[in-house]
Structure formats: structure tokens, C-alpha cells
């Protein structure tokens, strides 16, 4: 069935674009949405997740476990960065931009010196999905579904835990939250660590599909920023809506005009959306 094949092809591609956009953007969105901080080293956090996943995988831990290790390692690293660097710069957007940009350069070079140009690769698991004349990488399907799972997990963290409630309160009104006993310093520290865990998990999930290099973060930084810009400050709905709508643009565009066409469509759409909706998708869903 050629029609079924075409639909499958479209859906799988959409799922993989959606997964890439959502995974690349989620950690950045959490940190930006809650703390108002733009982490320019976000790509390098993804890289750290990928490297630590690869090291754990090389040590014999199965991939799923290795990805968890990658997420936790990146989270621990994020915690250190927050304590040493970020917390001194709350509410100073430009300062954090410059500081995290500097951090990204340092991280890239440090990894280059420590591990050299390329690093142990992880084979793509799960093999091939086959239906009639159509075949696709099973892992890409899993990747898209995992992205959905991470959204669900993030949603649960923000709605079901004390930390999540306090983070949302601090995001909406920091002074009032403090006046009600919320230790916003601690909330921000946990937020940065949580965002880092998400970036690390994304890095671990990307690791089998890509080549690990110190500069690999730059491959995801466009996707991450585009998703967050289009999504706006609403961490969950904004990011999810952005990844889905951008995926819906990129999928047919890249089918019709190739990879370059898909990329161009992505950027043009972003420009149009911020023209029409300066606050991104969040501006639509959270008008109160």
C-alpha cells in the first residue's frame, strides 16, 4: 500500500523531528522558563550527557542505564555550575549570557584536550522497523516516544512535587514566593540541576545517532533555541507546542526540498512566529 507507506514515512519523520526538537529544547526551556536564564552552554551540557553516556556504555552498562548515568552526571555538573557561577548572577541576563558562553568555550576545549577529536561511538540499538516497502530506524521511533515520556515526567515533577510547585510559584512571582517561605535560591539551584539532567538525557539519547566530538553541542543548539523561542516561557505547553508545530513544518519541507529546505523552513517559521506572537506559543496559552 503506497498510501500507507507514505503516511508511515511522514509519521516516523515527524516523530523523529519532534523528538530532536523537543529533547534539544526541553532542558534549556526549563532553565529559561523558571529562572529567566539563557544557558549558552546548553549544547555543551548535551555533549557532556553524550560523553558520560558513552563512557558508562563502554564500561558495560546497558544503554538505558548509561543514559540515566549521562543525565545524572550532567545534573551533578549543572549543580556545580549553578553554585559556582550562575547563582552570583540571578536577574542579570547579559552577565549570565556572557558567562555561560565563556563556559561553553572552556568545556569544548577541555573535552578536546581530555578526549581528543572523536570519542567512542555507540551502535544504534533496536534495529529496523519494517512494513511492506517501508523501513525506518526503530531507535528514532523510540526517541520520539521517549521525548513524549520526558514531557510527561517533567509535567509530573512540576505538578506533583513540592519542588515543582515552588518553582512555578517563584517563576510567577519571586518576591511573593519568598514572602511565603519559599527558598528561591534553593529552588533555582534545583531547577538548574533538573534542566541539566534533561539536557544530559537528551545527549545520551542522541549519542547513538551521532558522532561524539567536543563540538557536537553546536549541532543541537539551533534546534534548542528555535524551540524555546517559539515556545516562549511556558515550559511544558510552550515547548511541546513548539516542537510539534515546528516538526509539522520541517517534515514536509524536508521531504519536498531536502535537508537544507527543512532547515530553512524551520528558521523562516521561527521568524514569522516571533513576528506574529512575540511571546511565542506561551503567549497564546497563558493569556490570563
Amino acid at each position: 500500500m503506497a498510501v500507507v507507506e507514505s503516511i508511515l514515512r511522514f509519521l516516523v519523520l515527524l516523530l523523529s523531528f519532534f523528538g530532536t526538537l523537543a529533547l534539544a529544547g526541553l532542558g534549556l526551556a526549563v532553565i529559561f522558563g523558571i529562572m529567566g536564564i539563557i544557558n549558552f552552554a546548553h549544547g555543551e551540557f548535551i555533549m557532556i550527557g553524550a560523553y558520560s553516556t558513552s563512557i558508562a556504555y563502554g564500561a558495560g552498562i546497558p544503554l538505558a542505564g548509561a543514559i540515566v548515568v549521562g543525565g545524572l552526571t550532567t545534573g551533578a555538573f549543572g549543580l556545580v555550575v549553578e553554585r559556582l557561577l550562575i547563582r552570583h548572577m540571578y536577574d542579570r541576563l547579559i552577565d549570565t549570557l556572557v558567562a555561560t558562553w565563556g563556559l561553553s568555550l572552556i568545556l569544548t576545549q577541555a573535552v578536546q584536550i581530555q578526549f581528543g577529536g572523536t570519542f567512542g561511538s555507540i551502535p544504534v540499538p533496536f534495529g529496523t522497523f519494517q512494513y511492506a516497502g517501508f523501513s525506518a530506524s526503530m531507535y528514532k521511533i523510540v526517541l520520539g516516544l521517549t521525548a513524549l515520556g520526558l514531557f510527561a515526567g517533567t509535567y509530573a515533577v512540576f505538578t506533583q512535587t513540592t519542588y515543582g510547585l515552588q518553582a512555578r510559584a517563584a517563576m510567577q512571582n519571586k518576591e511573593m514566593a519568598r514572602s511565603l517561605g519559599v527558598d528561591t535560591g534553593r529552588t533555582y539551584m534545583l531547577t538548574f540541576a533538573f534542566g541539566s539532567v534533561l539536557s544530559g538525557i537528551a545527549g545520551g539519547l542522541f549519542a547513538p545517532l551521532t558522532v561524539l566530538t567536543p563540538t557536537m553541542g553546536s549541532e543541537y543548539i539551533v534546534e534548542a533555541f528555535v524551540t524555546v523561542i517559539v515556545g516562549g516561557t511556558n515550559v511544558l505547553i510552550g515547548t511541546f507546542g513548539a516542537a510539534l508545530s515546528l516538526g509539522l513544518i520541517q517534515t514536509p519541507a524536508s521531504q519536498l526540498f531536502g535537508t537544507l529546505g527543512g532547515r530553512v523552513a524551520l528558521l523562516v517559521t521561527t521568524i514569522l512566529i516571533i513576528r506574529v506572537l512575540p511571546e511565542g506559543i506561551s503567549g497564546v496559552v497563558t493569556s490570563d
Partner: protein
Amino acid sequence: MSLLELDAVNAGYGRTPVLHDISMEIHEGEIVSLIGRNGAGKSTLMKTIIGLLTPTSGELTFAGESIGDDSPERRARRGIGYVPQDKEIFPRLTVHENLKVGRFVNETNERALFEEMYDYFPILDERRNQKAGTMSGGEQQMLAVARALVGAPDLLLLDEPSEGVQPTIVEEISDIVQEINRDIGTTVFFVEQNLDFTINTTERCYVIETGELVNELPPDDLRDSEVVQRHITV
């Protein structure tokens, strides 16, 4: 016994001093109000007590301990509940979530008073799962009061609870504040321009003028609306 004590407190915004040598004392179980004209420094005093402003000099003592160097979150956890002038409920949290944020006020409380609050404010019970930002001004004010009380604070700070609220609701809030004072023993300190609210609720009243406490009206004077009027007319 004194619960809150201010001794020669000076505070302001940046380099602009607003409060000059404020000294006052609030005893456990009292309901005390502060009246004064617009711009006299009422809200500034409230913010200085909760810690959103740092005094440039002077001593703040709460339950016998100096709190002048504490952060707002620390003061809240010691047992001060704060209702700011503009309500400042969290608009994108539900009513119940707003209350949950307040439960860490007074960290020594044994349990949060969710059900009690819903009993005092039945309208909040009806709207438990509604986003707080979608409610009316009066309902938001009730939520702000309930949120500050849910952790059973020792001291409740109310900054102009009647502002922008319909008279019937003003009366309701006034009644509930007195009930809570009676039932739970919460000490109340509030700032008001609304005469009725002040007269109905308060036991003792400080008068502030251009950043200085100029008078303290005992309960008898409070019944004399002429006296009160003089201090708060704009």
C-alpha cells in the same frame, strides 16, 4: 508578651529614606492596625517587617529573636504570614496550589490548615481547582489571606485588605480576621485606609505620617471617628 518589636527602624528604597526611627510593639493575640495617608510609609513598613526591604538601621525582634538579618523566606518560616497590597496571588496556579505554596509559613506548625481555610472561605472551596488568575478581585483577596494563614502563622501582616474589594466582602474579611484571631490565636497587624474596616476590626491603632509614628490611638479613641478621620484623610 511582645511578639513583634521594632526599635528605631530606618528603611527606604535605594538611597531614599522612607521610614524614620520607627519603634513599636505588638503583643501576642492582639489585632493592631496602622493608619496614615497615602505615601506615609505604611506598605514600606510592612515590607520591612517581612524582609523584602532591609532596614538601614534599627532592630527587629520577633518572638524574642532578632530577625533583622533574615531573608523574607526565613522570616516567613519563623511564622509571619504576609498579605501584600496587590494580593499577588499566583495567577497560573490553582486555588489549592496557591494554598499549598503557603503551607511552609511557620515551619513549626503541625499541619496545614487547608480544610479550616475552606471552611472560613467556602467560595475558595468551590474554586479549588480553578486557576487563581481567573477569579474576581474579592476572591483573590480571600485567597491571599487564606494563603498567608494556611501555615498557621503567629503573626499575620495584612496590607490594605479592603482595597479594590466590594464592601460586602470587606465586611466578610473583617469578620473572618477577627474569628481567626479568636479561634487560632493569630496576632494580626494590618494597614488600612478604610475606616469601617479599621474600626470594626482593630483593638489598637498606630498612626504614621511621612515615615514617622506620630500617635497611638487606644480603643476608646478608635470609636471616635472624628479622630481617626483626621489621620487618614488624603
